[in-house]
């Protein structure tokens, strides 16, 4: 243990003498999370909506108003009355609303009153988002149209689609992206921090000197790991403050649970970096390998951008080996939903298991290297 402590102390001194690493570790996550927190905006606004009102009653006008009042649409009169979908083809609009004749009359009598919304599916991200907005718009429409319809026989209301967005009622993407970004950025940073430490010592020859002393691989691994746990945890703490203060994010859960599970996640990332470093022994390759094994998988497969549930079955299983997938669930769960340890026991157990497996693998790999 004393030897591990010596290694740790030495590592701390390296970091403290190297303002670049320190600045990188503590400053970069904040910068990236703030920058991308503002940049990655899944909200779609200013959608040009062509309206073909073929009813021309107060009710149909109100329906159109609901769209313009939502803030997502810029309403304009249709350009091609003979074939409304041409507005989309000519890119004169991204969405077209067609309200059929006798809309008001049908609605009032309780018959099926139809309004059609055409969306430009070429950009399926915004189409998907608009679909998401529709439920909100329908709710609004119901309220706006109710007085007009009250006199009629329609008792149930004419909007049947009922989707509710829980936990993030405003569908504020920043609230959704920032906890995810924090996971991705701090995780990536952690892997890179340790990926270099052992490789650097192999490269400059100091590892050989270290191994000529009675120090054990496990002691080197633990000594290398612990200072970076503290460093990456501080980085995460700063990112947490950014989320709360700059993005004004609510925090629904327990801080102890959040930072405890962060610890599990960060240890997994650091151990992954260490394993890479022990295995390849060269800084440049270790760096490339750590980026390849962390950046794209954690961006694309962790559920940060694309929900894991909607991936093909193989990838749903594949993502299970990625620490960020589990911690992302914890992070969003604790931040927005206030989930407790019991509800998150699954992901937490997986992260703990990953810690054990990765640290053991790094130590084993270290030992095996010495014997050849």
């Amino acid at each position, binding site marked *: 243990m004393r030897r591990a402590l010596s*290694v740790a*102390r030495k590592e701390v001194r390296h970091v403290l003498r190297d303002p670049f690493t320190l600045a990188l570790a503590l400053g970069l996550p904040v910068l990236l999370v703030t920058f991308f927190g503002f940049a990655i905006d899944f909200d779609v606004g200013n959608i040009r909506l062509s309206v073909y009102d073929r009813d021309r009653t107060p009710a149909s006008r109100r329906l159109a108003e609901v769209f313009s009042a939502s803030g997502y649409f810029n309403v304009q009169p249709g350009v091609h009355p003979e074939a409304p979908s041409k507005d989309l083809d000519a890119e004169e609009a991204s969405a077209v609303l067609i309200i059929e004749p006798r809309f008001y009359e049908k609605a009032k009598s309780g018959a099926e009153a139809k309004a059609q919304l055409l969306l430009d599916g070429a950009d399926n991200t915004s189409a998907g988002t608009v679909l998401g907005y529709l439920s909100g718009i329908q709710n609004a429409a119901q309220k706006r149209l109710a007085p007009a319809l009250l006199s009629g026989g329609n008792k149930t209301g004419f909007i049947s689609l009922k989707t509710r967005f829980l936990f993030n009622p405003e569908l504020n993407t920043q609230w959704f992206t920032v906890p995810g970004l924090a996971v991705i950025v701090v995780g990536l940073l952690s892997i890179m921090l340790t990926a270099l430490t052992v490789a650097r010592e192999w490269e400059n*020859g100091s590892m050989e*000197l270290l*191994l*000529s002393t009675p120090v054990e691989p496990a002691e080197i691994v633990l000594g290398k790991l612990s200072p970076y746990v503290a460093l990456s945890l501080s980085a995460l703490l700063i990112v947490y403050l950014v989320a709360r203060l700059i993005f004004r994010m609510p925090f629904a859960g327990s801080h102890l649970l959040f930072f405890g599970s962060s610890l599990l996640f960060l240890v997994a990332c650091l151990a992954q970096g260490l394993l890479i470093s022990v295995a390849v022994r060269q800084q440049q390759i270790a760096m490339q390998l750590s980026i390849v094994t962390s950046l794209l998988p954690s961006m694309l497969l962790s559920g940060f951008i694309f929900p894991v549930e909607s991936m093909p079955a193989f990838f749903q299983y594949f993502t299970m080996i990625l620490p960020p997938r589990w911690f992302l669930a914890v992070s969003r769960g604790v931040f927005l939903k206030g989930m407790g340890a019991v509800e998150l026991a699954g992901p937490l157990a997986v992260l703990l298991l990953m810690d054990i497996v990765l640290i053991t693998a790094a130590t084993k790999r270290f030992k095996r290297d010495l014997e*050849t």
Partner: protein
Amino acid sequence: MNPSVDVSHLSIRFGSFTAVDDISFSVYPGEIFGFLGANGAGKTTTIRMLLGLLKPSSGEATVAGLAFEDGAAGAGRAIKNKVGYMSQRFTLYNDLTVSENLAFAAGLRKMSKDALERRTRELFEFIGFTHPASTLVKDLPGGLKQELALAAALLHEPEIVFLDEPTAGVAPAARARFWALIRKLAGSGKTVFVTTHYMDEAEHCGRIALMRAGRIIALDTPENLKAKAFPEPLVELEEADEALLGRLKAEPAVLDMRPHGMRWHLALKDEQSWRELEKRLPPGAARRIAPSLEDVFVRLVEGADR
């Protein structure tokens, strides 16, 4: 007296390449044992096996009376406690101070704070270190860095020190200082196992093993090596023109002649032929010399190649 290092028929192969090929030797306490050879001759590889950093393919080695094979980790640790190592590639962490470097080395050896303080005092005195211990290593001159690295290797009072090219890239004056330390060390009873490719340094060794392509091609004291390699007189010729060289080459008494910097070294058949040659050459043009280790090395290597 039991040998500090005892090696018999040690070999290591990396794939089809034999880096160290069936070497045997013993080193005794208080001895300065030199490993001389070009880069890639297998010097460092041998040291790495003796430190337990590489597993030999075959053969046996005991260090401080212990073999790495006995009791696996336990013996390995016992050996590591009895040896000090100064590596060729790395000495001290540049971004740490002198005292931080020593504290790190002491921590790995589980030395107490008192022991570290005492040894630091002793070793600073031993190497004549007068800078503040809070100096960053990168601010020290190269020679001093090597001396400190030696101090770090000696911190835990090892019986045997392995020095792998300790003076590579160090100024001549600093090299001389370093060798004075090595002699002092051996004088105090430590076994010093040192590799070098500086021929003049090898002269300081008690015994030298000449390594070439993984084999030991000669092992003896510097004096014996010279006597064995050059039983005949050796003559150094000052600058000579083509005509003289051609004439000398044709002399049956000249066994061997080769350039040596600006001069030429001639091996003659016997004392008689030297006396005759001296008379025929202009005065002062040639003089009888004792062979240097470099002459020995060149001759032995060529002998081995033949």
